[in-house]
């Protein structure tokens, strides 16, 4: 079913807040309808079979419900937040050692030296800006970025699989990240 270009009503960020604050089941159903099929697609591309992907998707969506009370739209938009939950679920499932995740706002960390560019934008604007930025990347950089995230392969594995020199893969990924940061920091 095609989705409308502009969705009226609350954003997914607001829906997740509603799940956290009111245990809102219709908000959960809306988030589920959009994200569960995408989470399953992500899990299948990173190596799960369809049955396992269904099972893990249900676990991810259950975590969305259970963690929603801690969700802060100022820290991450809905897609970014759900991506990290799905990524960590995949790592927990396939690796003995869990991902060393970190909270960027941890007060124990060394302080930010300056106002960093991506702090100037609100999360929802950032989501739009990052979409635009990915769309503006040169094709060969965007392709490597998709491989990195959709198949969760390290840059060295990607280099071996696509048959490019390691240095080429590194420099394309570095350029891609530098451009994304540049677009986010620029006048959006």
């Amino acid at each position, binding site marked *: 079913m095609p989705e409308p270009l502009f969705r009226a009503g609350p954003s997914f960020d607001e829906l997740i807040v509603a799940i956290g604050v009111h245990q809102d089941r219709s908000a959960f159903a809306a988030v589920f309808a959009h994200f569960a099929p995408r989470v399953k697609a992500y899990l299948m591309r990173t190596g799960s079979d369809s049955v396992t992907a269904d099972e893990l998707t249900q676990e991810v969506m259950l975590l969305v419900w259970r963690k929603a009370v*801690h969700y802060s739209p100022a820290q991450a938009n809905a897609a970014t937040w759900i991506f990290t939950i799905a990524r960590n679920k995949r790592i927990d499932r396939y690796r003995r050692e869990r991902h060393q995740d970190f909270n960027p706002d941890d007060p124990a960390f060394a302080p930010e030296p300056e106002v960093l560019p*991506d702090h100037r934008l609100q999360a929802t604007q950032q989501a739009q800006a990052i979409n635009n930025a990915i769309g503006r990347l040169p094709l060969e950089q965007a392709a490597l970025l998709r491989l990195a995230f959709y198949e969760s392969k390290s840059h060295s594995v990607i280099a071996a699989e696509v048959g490019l020199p390691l240095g080429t893969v590194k420099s394309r990924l570095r350029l891609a990240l530098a451009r*994304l*940061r540049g677009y986010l920091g620029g006048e959006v």
Partner: protein
Amino acid sequence: MSRGTPFSLPRGALVPACHPGEELLLDYASGASSGPEAMMIATHLAFCAVCRATVKVAVQAGGALLDAIKPAHLQPGMLDRTLAAIDTTRSAVLPADAPVPPVALDDYLALPDWKKLPGGFRMRRVSGDDRTGDGRVWLFDAPPGMKLLPHRHGSDEWIVILRGIFVDHGTPYRPGDFACMADGEVHRPTIGGDERCVSLVMVRESPRFTTLLGKLSAPFVRL
């Protein structure tokens, strides 16, 4: 609380001068790093707001790509089953993520079971599994002025300095600095400054010493 680094940090630390390559930050953001690699990156990130910002952008890209992925077909009835699971889950709300409070470095240094080597050097395994080949993480604690034996790595070696100054090929590395020694490179690091140098080191295989003395001591410093 940080889950990223096993050690809490001194306040007011300087911004590190040496950073992991952005491709390593991307591996971390996409979840492609091994556990030991992720521990090294997370430890640098705890010191480095600049690399944290880069990881944040990379994770946002991951979110945008998840949003743009071609959706898969779910098994019928999954939403109802998930809602039913919500009803049967005893504790519906999870506590915020705080599973591994970092150990203060001094507490870690005070632990009894360090492997001691001549010259006041000692080391302790922090993480890693021999069976996976993903790398092992050690904490090194070396006295000032110490010259480590020349050695060659059969694979890359990563270091994050936690305290003191470590000098390699004439470059001083200070707390928070991340260094990656390339596969096959021979190096003979020294400890600069006048305090002990504590560093987190990830190796994938034991180094090969290039001098007779080193070769004789190899059995004692197998990493």
